[in-house]
């Protein structure tokens, strides 16, 4: 049955989702946390369904998380790691989409180094598509797992003051989090040098700070971002050493935030670049490992939900949707 609280075929981004839709996804995900913690983790909720992880960018963590989320519900999972160089050699993104579509998967999880690429692919298939991260655009399941982590710790999202620090410009995690947190009523602050946090972000309903001391003041959540040197074309910071000095998170800078502020990081961490090990491993404050745990629960909920919606769609309409390139 189509889930009346979430009628979308795909999850391409957080932008455009309503607060009740986000709340619903988080509720569903919360229900999977205990299942994952139990001795017997398997269910047959997705038995007979096929999930393809189509990754045009190297990833171990996210791919593994999606894979576990599908397998724990009894789905078949295929992992396809496509190097972007072979794509540019001839087979286009759309060719790949059409080919896979012909094999009738139920859900495609797609990660691609270019912003908008997952949406382009989604237009050409008639299965459900989950954006596993597209360029610097969106990474919706990461924002959902961050929100679930916060909600379980703090009991709410609205009214919280959240700082997102570092390489916001290149970060799809930051964008999805900005969309989600502002939609749910949290106050979002971005902190970083102007080269990585341009003023144009203000239009997204956030405050922008250029130093950690002012930006972190009274924050409930400190979300650190990875410095994405692989996406940088040109010189955005003078050196990693200087970056850590001014924008890295250590005990001193953290002292500006609320004393019970939670520390988050989407991983993988560059220790000593954006975050000090002492802080990252702080058992009391750091919820970085919990984020990974919530990731599986969130992805279980998303895959399950989209597969159910898709079944209903298929019963109601013949499979003659898009597919021709």
């Amino acid at each position, binding site marked *: 049955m189509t889930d009346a609280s979430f009628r979308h075929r795909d999850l391409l981004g957080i932008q455009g989702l309503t607060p009740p839709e986000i709340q619903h996804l988080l509720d569903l995900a919360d229900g999977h946390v205990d299942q994952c913690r139990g001795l017997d983790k398997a269910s047959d909720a997705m038995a007979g369904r096929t999930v393809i992880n189509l990754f045009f960018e190297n990833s171990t963590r996210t791919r593994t998380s999606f894979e576990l989320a599908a397998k724990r519900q009894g789905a078949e999972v295929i992992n396809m790691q496509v190097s972007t160089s072979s794509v540019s050699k001839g087979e286009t993104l759309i060719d790949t989409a059409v080919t896979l579509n012909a094999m009738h998967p139920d859900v495609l999880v797609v990660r691609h180094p270019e912003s*908008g690429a997952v949406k382009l692919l989604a237009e050409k298939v008639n299965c459900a598509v989950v954006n596993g991260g597209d360029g610097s655009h969106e990474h919706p399941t990461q924002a959902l797992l961050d929100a679930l982590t916060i909600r379980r710790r703090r009991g709410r999202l609205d009214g919280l003051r959240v700082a997102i620090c570092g390489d916001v410009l290149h970060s799809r995690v930051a964008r999805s989090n900005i969309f989600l947190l502002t939609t749910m009523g949290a106050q979002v602050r971005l902190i970083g040098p102007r080269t990585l946090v341009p003023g*144009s972000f203000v239009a997204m309903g956030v405050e922008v700070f250029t130093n950690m001391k002012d930006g972190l003041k009274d924050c409930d959540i400190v979300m650190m971002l990875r410095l994405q040197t692989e996406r940088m074309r040109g010189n955005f910071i003078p050196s990693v050493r200087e970056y850590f000095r001014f924008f890295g998170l250590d005990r001193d800078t953290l002292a500006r935030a609320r004393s019970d502020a939670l520390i988050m990081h989407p991983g993988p961490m560059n220790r000593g670049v954006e975050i000090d090990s002492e802080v990252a491993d702080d058992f009391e404050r750091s919820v970085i490992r919990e984020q990974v745990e919530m990731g599986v629960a969130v992805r279980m909920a998303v895959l399950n939900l989209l597969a159910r919606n898709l079944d209903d769609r298929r019963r109601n309409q013949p499979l003659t949707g898009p597919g021709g390139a």
Partner: protein
Amino acid sequence: MAIDTPGRVAYINARLLDPATGLDAGGGLLTEGEHIVHLAPGLFRDGPPVGAQVVDCRGACLAPGLVDMRTQLREPGQEHKESFKSAGRAAAAGGVTSMVGLPNTNPVIDGEAAVEFVARRARLIGLAKVFTYAAATKGLEGRELAEVGLLRQAGALAFTDGVKAVADAQVMRRLLAYAASHDLLVIQHPEEPSLAGSGAMNAGEMATRLGLAGIPREAELIMLERDMRLVAMTGARYHAAHVSTAEGVDILRRAKAQGLRVTADTAPFYFALNELEVGDYRTFAKLSPPLRAEADRQAVIAGLVDGTLDAIASDHCPQDADTKRLPFNLAEFGGIGLETLLPVTLSLVHGGHLSLLDALDRVTRAPADLLGLDAGRLRTGAPADLVVFDPDRPWKVVADTMRSKAKNTPFDGHLVQGRVIRTVVDGRAVFPEGEG
């Protein structure tokens, strides 16, 4: 009705429109062979002349054929995207009777043989007249001057590095100084490449949301400001192509007031569309320069109204599906425009910004004069390059029905007004197909 060589053709019941003289009156026009031999208000009111083929315009507008001063024809080298023939058909359907191609073909048009190739090939096809610019620097590499004097003698109308700016200030200075001594026109794509970088759309809120690298407006402004200094230094004739920003229009307005020999054009994209057209990564809206903000669009219109922007060019840039059906950042820049040049230009009339004569001026007399072409006028003795059109007729632009080989129109799905009924080149009807 079809005849082999154009004899005498009488256009009756026409609304004659000639921007050069301000003529706007009901009347008739007579062509003989390749030329206009007579035109006057009220002409043929008492019936067409004996022995002439008669074209009854039924009250529609009869104007000089459009002169499109910026197109990419892709021949030689990329005939899978466009050719003289396919572009010629698109031009004919759009009322364009003369078009000028950029030299960024393969091989680059930087030698006399290439200029002559274009002239010969285009003549054989016999649709819209094809003219060409030649490279300003050898191989469009921005380092050594091309043989601009010889290329001019071979027939190149002006000199440009096409879709690239001449970026090096010293090279540009020498190009302008040398061009000034031969009274040649230099056309610049005003964009500072180091600032445009790998950007894919206008820098700003929308690019930020979409996670795309932006091209700041300052890339255009810095290049225009620099070039104005170099023009002042050298006294050269300079033309800025496809101006897209409000402040860019201001820079040109000041330069003209200062008396510099500067002209400029814009394309319909920049006065009819803004960056919102990119929407959800629509690559047909990926243009160079990028579509800008709404305030820029309005300022570009103001520039056309006060004459700061002299001409409108289609900026026709054919791209095939393989280079457009890609993630936005990887897709090529450009949109086709030959068939939509007239109706989108007429939107300025329907929107109350320009009179019909002034709008036509920007696509006929102005570009013809700027390039020294014997075109763009209804005048006895002039080549019979004409367009008959209904300025009000509405139609919907559908990419797949475009005559261009490439279908990448940013206006796909847009409703426009103004449809070409007949296009005449050298006295011969080239549109509708099969006439003349």
